[in-house]
């Protein structure tokens, strides 16, 4: 990400959106910790709060999806770099191809996750677990995250075409810590 002071309003808004997604994901992560701790405490004390398992799962899905866009721009998502590196000065075309596929795939994901929320709401789907939550509620953050990822890919595609390079930083640490 560029750190110039004269960043365009659109640029600032978009980056702000991705980062907001990241922060929301981090909040979900803390919430997961609380839910799991609550689960242990309630088990030890024989109090029962139904549906904690499900809540932890919903938060997990939200934490993952909301963070996708932020993680993309910080370069955390893993890819096989050999081919792009081998392209040398023609790297642009390799990046362009990847960005087009990425945009298409993430837009597809975003579209169908919106549909999932729409139909869950329309059909009044309830969770199968003890919580009986209407499914569209926990599915909404997932759809928001998927849409953010699609926007982020489209944004990168446009930036790549216009400026010759995308907004993706390099975050070898996040990648390597997955190993």
């Amino acid at each position: 990400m560029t750190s110039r002071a004269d960043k365009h309003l659109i640029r600032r808004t978009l980056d702000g959106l991705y980062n907001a997604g990241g922060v929301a994901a981090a909040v979900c992560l803390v919430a997961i910790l609380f839910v799991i701790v609550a689960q242990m405490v309630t088990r030890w004390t024989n109090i029962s709060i139904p549906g904690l398992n499900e809540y932890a799962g919903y938060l997990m899905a939200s934490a993952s999806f909301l963070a996708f866009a932020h993680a993309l721009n910080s370069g955390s998502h893993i890819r096989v770099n050999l081919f792009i590196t081998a392209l040398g000065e023609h790297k642009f075309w390799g990046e362009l191809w990847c960005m087009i596929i990425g945009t298409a795939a993430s837009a597809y994901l975003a579209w169908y996750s919106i549909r999932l929320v729409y139909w869950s709401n329309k059909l009044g789907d309830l969770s199968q677990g003890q919580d009986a939550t209407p499914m569209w509620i926990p599915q909404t953050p997932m759809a928001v995250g998927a849409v953010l990822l699609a926007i982020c890919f489209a944004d990168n595609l446009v930036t790549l075409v216009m400026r010759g390079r995308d907004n993706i930083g390099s975050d070898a640490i996040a990648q390597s810590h997955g190993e």
Partner: protein
Amino acid sequence: MAEFIPIAIFLFVLFLLLGTGVWVGLALLGVAFVGMELFTSRPVGDAMMTIIWRSASSWSLTALPLFIWMGEILFRTRLSEDMFKGLAPWMARLPGGLLHTNVVGCTVFAAVSGSSAATLTTVGKMSIPELRKRNYPEHLVIGTLAGAATLGLMIPPSLTLIVYGVTINESITKLFMAGIFPGLVLALMFMAYVGLVSRFSRSYKPDPEPVTSLIDKVKNSRFLIPVLVLIFFVIGSMYGGFATATEAAAIGVLGALVLAAGQGSLNIKTFVESLMGAMRTSAMIALILAGASFLSLSMGFTGLPRALAEWIGSLGLTRFELLMALLVFYIVIGCFLDGISSVVLTIAVVEPMVRQAGIDIIWFGIFIVVVVEMAQITPPIGFNLFVMQGMTGHEMNFVARAAFPMFLIMVVMVFVLIAFPELATWLPANIRQHAGG
């Protein structure tokens, strides 16, 4: 031949997307989409969302971000200094001297971190400069560290084992328990190697360590006690059946926060950094898992896993031959893909094969982890090599060559594991059951 054409297209798209550098999670998604379009008339998008939602919101997956977070917190403490200071006096008298701090340090940190690269960085930050100061041969300092750091993947908690467990729907606690003895045996093998080399190598002339009294030794290692207590609680709670893997991870996070606070290295900045780091790494893995869950659905429709399992069955391979074939297969894949991606990409195909051959699926998890560990230290894309290169400034070639003996030791470990499967199967069979799951 006509029925092979769709399969050929499917595989071609797989190699094309992964090979050209499309982000792994999205590449898997794309291949799965092509597979569904070729082999079924179902509404693809809705089927995709159902399976992705189910896998992304799975409760057992929550162990993943929590264990990553725990490692991230400890990564930002003074642990690496304490580790070297605390371990060095005890290792000084062993044949091979302080090189053992690399192996033992990695073993200890592996027990609080699920990542081999984080293990490498934490231990290496302190041990590389200290060992250089004492004139230990550079290639051994680097080799043992790169090799031993892979223990991070085997000794619980292990991110690869969580991903494996979630994908094949097996108990993560059992897999964790299965990793303990093989991990310790591998560590002992690394230490034996260090001992042998120190005896037979002429260039091995490190500066001798001053003799320290027992009291000094204990005094120096008192900082290690909190970490050992933390390890005891995390692994003990799972073994004793008091907590599931996820709950143990939550205990681990809280413990790590207490430990960091006690050391004075916990402040708003490190807390936020550790949280954001964990969030990014787990998002990275979650995207791969989302793609992989759709791919395994799609794979089912292609009939590829069943056909391969039947084909392998018809060859009449012995278990040993099958495992050798898989060993080679994973080493080759590991040259191009990271560990987690290669596990999730192949498991839909490999699992039926392995089950049909009557191989214990928990044991196979450990087998796959050792093999994936090897890939960490083989070029061209071993992560540990990259991290090591960044830390020491050596050429990739040098690092890879320094780590090669460790690669061979891991190959030996695979055979040990095949010869003594009880190493991995005994402990999980003896866990106590209190908690559900």
